[in-house]
């Protein structure tokens, strides 16, 4: 490990970097947070956010790796359909590693996000800071050119993932029959991204590769396994403890909680589940004092895991099309019952948070170890106090059960979702042949 870092440092010196890199891990995390803010502003859906994080952090990772002569770890050839990134060596030599990496985060985000224009200002202030920290304009310009070239190439890669075709595919119609998903209040929004599973996966060989165990068969007879679960959500929801409410709120991660007061409507925004875990990744990279290059690498792996986990989860959601607790409870148990959280607009099985949190936690455990404790403050800006976790899996299992407390999932969606996520996380580790770093 130490030798690896030494080599890296030597290489850095050889490439003619500034004595001290003007930007570090903290700047990476801040930049990604600014990108998250734009996604929150745009009310980016959880699945869309996962995809954006994957391409943005991939860009940073591919930029970083251009500056490594040996131990060059490009993801080209390792991700589905991702071929080599060409970067002119001279161009690399004239550029600054850390500036280029941070700048690439902003540049790719500007290209991809609907409100990406909001990041142009951030690029300008980054440039100003870079100059203040000793970089010449020549180096800065060279770095920007290098990044633009990489961004362009990765955009070609982005364009082939079939996202562009989604708007032409048939929109969703709820299936006929009692056990199937129906839009839920208060917004009764149309089902979100029913064709998300048609996107190219990053690492999984297909969206169905980690199909979860089937959902409990729909049955309204009171002794059926399904209905037992319905009652479970109902009863729990009626007597939530303060701790359970705190947990539900902490992992709500609802990009747009619709408030309705008379004729007034507005949405309260929060980071998505993916945004929450990107935040955690930043926290622990910081805590473990990882280098910028390592941080870029780890974030990219995490984000790719996230994106594929969402594809896998959505594949199952729109295969099983299961009814949400709020719909089944209102119809067969108690018409006045409301879930503690607002039910998001897509079918129930499996639970998104359970799948993605467990998949990411599995990957982070691989990088940082089983008992890496941390304090999660990502929800402070939304008025929710920090929570302490003993390990990533601890956090993930809390994220999973939070959906049960929130009244938006049955237990099997959570348990089987967690298994689904774990399998995905392990697969990423294996497929990317990740050594411990």
């Amino acid at each position, binding site marked *: 490990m130490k030798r690896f870092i030494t080599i890296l440092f030597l290489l850095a010196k050889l490439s003619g970097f500034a004595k001290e890199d003007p930007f570090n891990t903290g700047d990476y995390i801040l930049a990604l947070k600014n990108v998250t803010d734009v996604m929150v502003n745009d009310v980016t859906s959880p699945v869309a956010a996962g995809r954006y994080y994957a391409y943005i952090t991939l860009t940073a990772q591919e930029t970083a790796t251009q500056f490594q002569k040996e131990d060059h770890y490009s993801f080209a050839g390792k991700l589905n359909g991702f071929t080599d990134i060409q970067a002119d060596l001279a161009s690399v030599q004239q550029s600054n590693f850390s500036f280029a990496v941070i700048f690439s985060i902003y540049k790719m985000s500007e290209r991809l996000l*609907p409100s990406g224009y909001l990041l142009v200002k951030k690029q300008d202030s980054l440039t100003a800071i870079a100059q203040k920290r000793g970089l010449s304009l020549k180096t800065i310009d060279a770095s920007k050119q290098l990044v633009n070239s990489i961004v362009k190439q990765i955009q070609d890669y982005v364009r082939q993932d079939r996202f562009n075709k989604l708007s032409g595919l048939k929109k969703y*119609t709820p299936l006929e029959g009692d056990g199937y998903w129906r839009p839920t209040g208060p917004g*009764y929004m149309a089902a979100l991204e029913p064709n998300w599973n048609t996107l190219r996966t990053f690492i999984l060989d297909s969206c169905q590769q980690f199909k979860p165990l089937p959902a409990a068969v729909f049955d309204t007879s009171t002794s059926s396994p399904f209905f037992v679960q319905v009652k479970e959500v109902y009863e729990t929801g009626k007597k939530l403890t303060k701790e359970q409410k705190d947990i539900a709120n902490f992992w709500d991660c609802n990009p747009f909680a619709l408030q309705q007061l008379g*004729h007034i409507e507005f949405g309260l925004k929060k980071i998505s589940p993916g945004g929450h875990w990107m935040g955690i990744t930043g926290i622990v990279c910081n805590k473990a004092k990882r280098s910028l290059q390592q941080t870029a690498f780890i974030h990219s792996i995490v984000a790719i895991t996230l994106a594929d986990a969402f594809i896998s989860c959505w594949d199952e959601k729109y295969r099983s099309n299961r009814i949400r607790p709020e719909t089944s409870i209102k119809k067969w148990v108690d018409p006045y019952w409301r879930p503690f959280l607002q039910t998001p607009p897509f079918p129930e099985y499996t639970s998104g948070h359970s799948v993605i949190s467990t998949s990411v936690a599995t990957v982070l455990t691989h990088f940082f170890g089983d008992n890496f404790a941390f304090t999660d403050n990502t929800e402070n*800006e939304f008025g929710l106090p920090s929570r302490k976790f003993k390990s990533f899996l601890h956090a993930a299992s809390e994220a999973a059960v939070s959906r049960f407390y929130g009244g938006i999932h049955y237990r099997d969606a959570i348990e089987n979702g967690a298994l689904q996520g774990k399998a995905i996380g392990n697969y990423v580790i294996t497929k990317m042949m990740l050594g411990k770093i």
Partner: protein
Amino acid sequence: MIMFWVAVCISEITQSQPVKLFSLLPSSETNITFRNTLVETAELNIITYEYFYNGGGVATGDFNNDGLIDIYLTGNLVSNKLYINKGNLKFQDITKAAGVEGRKGWKTGVSVADVNGDGWLDIYVCYSGDLEPKQRRNQLFINKGNLTFTDKAEEMGIADEGYTTQAAFFDYDRDGDLDLFVLNHNIKTLRNFDAAFVKKMVDPDAGDRLYRNDNNHFTDVTTKAGIISNPIGYGLSVIVSDINNDGWPDMYVSNDYVEEDYLYINNHDGTFSEQLKQQLQHISNFSMGADIADINNDGWPDIYTLDMLPADNKRQKLLFAPDNYELYNNQLTNGFYHQLMRNMLQVNNGNGTFSETGQISGISNTDWSWSALFADFNNDGNKDLFVTNGYGRDMINRDFVKFYANERLKFLRGEPSERMFQMLKGIKTTLLHNYIFENKGGLHFRDCSLEWGFEEENLSHGAAYADFDNDGDLDLVVNRMNVEAAFYRNTLVESGKQNNYLQIKLQMPGLNSFAVGAKVNVYSGKDVVTIENFPVHGFQSSMQIPLHAGLSSSQIDSIVVRWPNDELQTIKENIKANQLINITYKGTGKYFEEIKRTSAIFTPASSSLPFKHKEDEANDFKTQPLMPNMLSYSGPHIAKADVNKDGLEDIFICGAKGQAGSLFMQTQRGDFILSRQNAFDDDAGSEDTDALFFDADGDGDMDLYVISGGYAFAKDDPLLHDRLYINQNGSFTKNKNALPRETSAGSCVRAGDVDGDGDLDLFVGSRVVPGRYPETPESFLLINDGKGNFENKISALAPALQFAGMITDAGWIDINKDKQPDLIVSGEWMNIKCFINNKGQLKAEANYFSDSLSGWWSRIYMADLDKDNDLDIIAGNWGDNSQLHVNKNKPACLYYADFDNNGYVDPLLCYFIGDRSYPLASRDDITDQMTSLRQRFPTYDSYSEASINDIFTAEQIKNAQKLEADFFETVWFENDNGKFLMHHLPVQANYSPVYAIACDDYTGDGQIDILLAGNIEHTSIKLGKIDANYGILLAGGGKGNFNYVPQLNSGFKVQGCVRDIIQMNIGGKKTILFGINNSMPILYNYGLSK
């Protein structure tokens, strides 16, 4: 000399400023300084009380019986005010002395009536607000006759504690005293309920209530009377009217939000039946103020409700949420009905049905509106319309919903209510001008808002009219938020402009001294003006004043009063126009009798066709969300022929996707018996869009061609292949090899001998390329080899016809009288096109239709309408009853291309709103569909003024295809020696899209009449279902003119989407058969009485 010059100067001054009809008088002249001041605090604001911005009300009436009309205004928080009219438009505030300022609390509507029947007008004040029940008790200020009042509400049992908006006094049980309906709303937010069980609940505070007057004490009879009183009825107006002219007062209740409005029909026995869904086809969504009046002078009261749709594009784009079909259908299945966000004008057909014509009448878009008042402001015999509007702050702005609210709240600190309040204060207010429309007759209203003096922008709520200066025209008072109430003097009479009126003050003995519920008809030449004497109109306001009738001439033949007990009193002698007359009840002993009608032209037939067209309920918008209308609901078409040669015509009716088309044989008795045909059953999977009986193989019997069309198929689905069934002794077998291979979605098949070889060839028009609207589909010209085998020779014989457009109908007609059949085709986004036949070659010829007239032509029908031995054409079109109004200078355009380069066609419809063309699609709809636009329009504001040039680059537009439509009227074309001259039809022809046409001398007067039917239900939510046509009969007048026959006279009450009309003899009777989408056919007989 000086006087001369002064006079000249004055006249110059007055001439240089055109005097507007209404003149806003300042409070310095009138002394009306009342101001509905609303102070927002953290404890009380629009968030803590959802109706904080609804405003106050106005009442007009003569409180001291001195012949001058006085004014009462309610203030939500400030004290109410009573102004006594001192003459010369000077008013005196006597509130305190009178004791009518109201209590501390939240005051809403005011209803004036002589409740205790002592001849003096009393005042009922309504209360709401998030306050203790006793602070919400309504007050009844009983007039002591000396300009002082005492609150006797509690004593009389009507100190209702509900959250009241307004109340109406009327004699529902016709026992001679005034009863009371109290309209309440809820202060809790209960929206988008998906549980129908809530509708059956009874809520003590939010539910409406009916009180029966028994000897000056009121009893709650709500449930007994059948009045709905649930917690989701957010009642915003109640208007009383005898809507069905049976002499008993009925009620219309407007409900905000999801609960539908109520139409209470009086059962004469102390109960009401709620009949809205039976009589109205769709209603306003957030119904606010309303009014009921006879706006077309046909003797039947019409209903008008207000909603929130802005007139301009910018505000529309800032307001519109994306179309949500699941939510719309969810509301339907839960019993909440078809609700669309715009004002609705429900024209009473007199037969228990209403035709909604708000858009064709031009009064559908007035922004967030409160008061609607029908009154004849220019005394020309037609009731005009005044609408107030305005909302305290722009919080339904979608940028607020999606961005602004969260942004602000994030940075505000403190208690939730304080943070909400701070956020609120940052939201801007948009002031709007009120609207006034001149009723031009013929269901047409002209926007005269600026011309008649209502240019001032403000927030206006309750309003009332009265003739305050007794000069013969109606003035207006408007209650406004945070500024002084507006007093508008009507300058009509003094301007010397031509006008005539009559004011009638009714009086009767007993407890209903002002004769509430009486109806007056003023007969003047061939005109009759009808007015009902009910005081509550508009929003939170009431007017107990002499009835005001404007007249088209000064000649008055008679006045007929129908008193509340149904006694008739006719005044004939010497009634001069332009005065106020008093009519006191004189018991004549003559009661109103329903006029024995001459029997209707059409009567429901006893025969029926036992076939229910059953749609598969596809939602075409799931495939192409930006299409304006769905295309899967175009059936059934019906073909008729004597299949078994028994002298009786038989029927083939098309089946929808998944349903077999069916053959029915007519019996002597006029029944239809299904003739089971395996060949038809085998093809049930196809959607039959047209069918034609013709002798394909020349063996002397009728074969059958059925088109497989529709939209909900893959582009090359074999289910789109048409079928030819050969008739062998009444058994039909499909000839699989008779037709060339094709998978186009056809719309019409018409037989003609194109090549003059003695057999019948076929033109098959195509409607759409499934999934790729509006790309041009391929049509076919199938040439018959004489034995029933067809070859497509269109590219050789009629190349211009092959891709002529999205064809909806066609017809063979010898235009140039050379004995060769020529072809006329109609289609969507097309001119009607002519193809002249020259020895089997069909060549496109322009100049047969005198104007280019590109429309959404949906049906054509050929008949000799003017009896000059040539075929004229009736052409059905989209009509004028939608948001899309077009003309040559302001066409609708459809741009289409694969803008996103993702292999899918994106159609973008643009149309003119005002002087500029804008996209129909909302920001959400367009960015969902075209991902490349998400960066261009990150906010709703950025899209709110976008036209096509802002959405696409010049390059993209250049490379896109473009279709245009500049004419949406249904018309007839007179064949004048081969040239077709366009003639307009009555306004009713444009009530809705016409999909079915028939002609005959239905009235039996020797002239050909026209029958039009149509309607569309499966359209985008933004356009909304158009359903005003119940079967429109236009009687031929003999000179090329056609006159609308009212439904009561035609006898038609056809509900649903009509797609075909067949005329035939059934059981020896002339019969009309309407083919209705997703329903059973409806049959009518005619010509029986003659």
